[in-house]
């Protein structure tokens, strides 16, 4: 069921304490700042957040972490020059970290959306990030078993939506949007523009509307 929602606050109102929330974006590109701010305001706590990073500067995900709302981060690259809020929480032992190689992060999210129960990959074989995981030699290469990452909610940013929820993105802001939309039970997309159904060329649609539940236009 697709809903067009007037405000970002209403769009995230159903997010409960303890939810797993995927947040799109790589750096600031594709990061749904308005939806993250609304998540902050809605008060949900004990969140597990899936994002490539763990917040930058004093905005968005970084503030959610600073306020102690995130119990666990699943990400590939938490440490950055301006990730001071995550750094402080991590060093204080106040946040869990599941560190995942970036390609495994993307493929585990994709696998969840595609109904795949797990997969073997050479990435990480023989490293500390494979410790405790099942391994096999396949095609002559050591490979590690990785499991899907599911989420209750995905918050993503796209350029345009049409009346049935089809999405197109802009340049490298696409990043995690399409796979997170498929992996979550409920996907909220903030978009810059809503066009009438038929207003997007079916050949260029990136995320079919079947993966999208809520759309909110953000100026």
């Amino acid at each position: 069921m697709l809903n067009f929602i007037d405000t970002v606050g209403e769009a995230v109102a159903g997010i409960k304490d303890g939810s797993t929330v995927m947040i799109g974006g790589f750096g600031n590109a594709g990061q749904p700042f308005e939806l993250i701010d609304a998540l902050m305001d809605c008060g949900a706590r004990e969140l597990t957040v899936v994002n490539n990073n763990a917040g930058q500067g004093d905005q968005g995900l970084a503030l959610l972490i600073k306020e102690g709302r995130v119990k666990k981060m699943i990400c590939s690259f938490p440490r950055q020059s301006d990730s001071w809020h995550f750094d402080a929480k991590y060093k204080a032992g106040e946040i869990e970290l599941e560190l995942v190689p970036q390609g495994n992060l993307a493929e585990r999210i994709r696998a969840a959306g595609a109904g795949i129960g797990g997969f073997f990959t050479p990435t990480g074989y023989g490293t500390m990030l494979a410790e405790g995981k099942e391994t096999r030699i396949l095609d002559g290469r050591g490979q590690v078993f990785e499991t899907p990452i599911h989420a209750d909610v995905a918050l993503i940013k796209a350029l345009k939506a049409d009346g049935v929820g089809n999405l197109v993105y802009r340049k490298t802001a696409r990043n995690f949007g399409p796979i997170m939309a498929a992996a979550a039970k409920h996907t909220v997309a903030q978009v810059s523009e809503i066009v009438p159904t038929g207003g997007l060329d079916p050949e260029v649609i990136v995320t079919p509307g079947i993966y999208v539940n809520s759309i909110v236009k953000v100026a």
Partner: protein
Amino acid sequence: MSIQTASIQTSETPLGRDDLARLVARDIKPGSFVNLGIGQPTLVSNYLQPEQNITLHTENGMLGMGPEATGDQIDGDLINAGKIPVTELPGASYFHHADSFAIMRGGHLDICVLGAFQVSATGDLANWHTGAPDAIPAVGGAMDLATGAKDVFVMMTLLTRDGASKIVEACTYPLTGVGCVTRVYTDKAVFLTGPDGVTVRETFGCTLEELQALVPVPLTAAPAVEP
């Protein structure tokens, strides 16, 4: 031995960062699809020639990446893996993150160029974590690049600030990938690594004997098959 070492010393002095980047750029075969890691490897793009027809991949989701953006070109939606604004070239394409890593993990990239803390005699790579107890680990795409690209080139200084060789018998830092590095470009020499150990393609400002005194693994001159 002295004749052989003279033949592989191709520079009277160690190479600076830009000279090393120029050398890596020259060694990339025309028509290659290449991913340049963050930091020193990014310099290589400054020396790629148009006639080489190299296509650059950036793992956040683009092929056909152009030079760093300046002035009015800067667009927050068009960045590279280092989160620096870049430009797109004619023929560029965008794709989502799982497709971007499938390009890498599926063996479609010809070369990736990475920095390193250590490389072992058999091509193990350590470049993501010092292992220090208070360090916050961050891996990004390093493990995917190391295991996915057909050739993994490393660019680094040969010695640490303390004078220890970064080419080692076995890595003491946590591994990024096992047996994945094929070449190591350093200020003092170009090394070829593989299951049979380390050979030296050329040296800069030192003889093979002088180089051997710095590096704790057996070195031999590489057969002269490389350009």
